[in-house]
């Protein structure tokens, strides 16, 4: 998913640029969760919904599902010239299609499902609206 706040890069650049929140919900979650100053527990109060969010952000790394998916990618690579590859290849592809998308970690899946709503809510915002300003004239 790409959002309109991508800035600056010339066309053809190998580097994709994203401004604040421009990379989608997965980027936002990854950028801000579990970061920042943690304040003394005794002055903070409980709020609904935070713990759930932190659990959802746990990332699944390597697993048997990952390994099998890598192997499916090997099926799709047509780099070995040996043998005829008609029917067996098609069988392999069909097997791949059946399991594809199953092994997504909880976070990415959730992010895909709800990201549409985020984009919508961002789309009609003026990019500068939330920008605080600094009173240079009164400084120090």
């Amino acid at each position, binding site marked *: 998913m790409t959002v309109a706040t991508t800035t600056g890069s010339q066309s053809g650049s190998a580097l994709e640029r994203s401004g604040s929140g421009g990379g989608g919900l997965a980027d936002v979650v990854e950028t801000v969760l579990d970061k920042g100053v*943690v304040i003394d527990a005794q002055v903070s*109060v409980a709020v609904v919904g935070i713990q759930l969010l932190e659990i959802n952000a746990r990332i699944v790394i390597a697993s048997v599902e990952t390994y099998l998916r890598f192997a499916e990618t090997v099926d799709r690579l047509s780099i070995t010239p040996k043998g005829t590859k008609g029917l067996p290849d098609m069988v392999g592809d069909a097997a791949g299609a059946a399991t594809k998308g199953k092994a997504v970690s909880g976070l990415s899946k959730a992010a895909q499902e709800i990201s549409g709503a985020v984009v919508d809510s961002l789309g009609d915002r003026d990019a500068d609206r*939330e920008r605080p300003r600094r009173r240079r004239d009164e400084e120090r």
Partner: protein
Amino acid sequence: MTDERKQPAGETGLFLYGIMPSDVEPTPDAEGVGSPPGEVTAIRQGDLAVLVSEVGLEEPIGRPADLTAYQRLLDATAAVAPVLPVRFGTVVTGEDAVDDLLDAHHDRFAAALAELEDRVQYTVHGRFAEAEFISGLLAQNPPAAALADQVRGRSEVECREERIRLGEMIAQAVELRREAENRDLVDAVGRYAVANAARPPSHELDAVNVAFLVTTDDEDEFIQAVEDFAERRRDLVRMRLLGPLAPYDFVSAHQLVD
């Protein structure tokens, strides 16, 4: 969240976004978390201020829009002044609690803000192009290529064990290459940053994931160095540069947990 911690209806708290110098003020239309979005204000004490907005204690905070509002506000603040992000989800009972917080830790906050003056975070995040990475690996690794020949064209039922072994070899190769890429990235662009912080991979195909703290005077050179790094890996890694951001990865030294 357990029921006994729910607050009575109608009670509100203050959601904390970040700590900043007191000469910064949110614009009137700055939007905070909550639905409808809370109005963002600054609570000041001496030379420090905290960005806050009121939230209902029974309202679930942590929806995608809340996270996005939090990040946008902090990133926009970081663009004009140093800011110490407060961990997402921190809510206190009221202004008194904010005053206590600033009283208790004034010197640490002030010192941290002085360090962050004119500095912003950039995060470099790259992901291997799966087919290209695996093709390259099979071309250079005969045992993996032999295993690939065994599984190709056979169903998972027929050769599940071989598939798992092949996939594991690929995953290990990704991990090794990732360590090398992260080192190379820091070698190539680290000189344009005052600090860097490795971030854990967020995807099994992650190639690099490092946060950099960059002085605003060095931003152009830093970005150019990242572009050059990306260009050298054009076909292998989808490289992204996130930022400028608030210094989320550079405040760990200021944690105040007892």
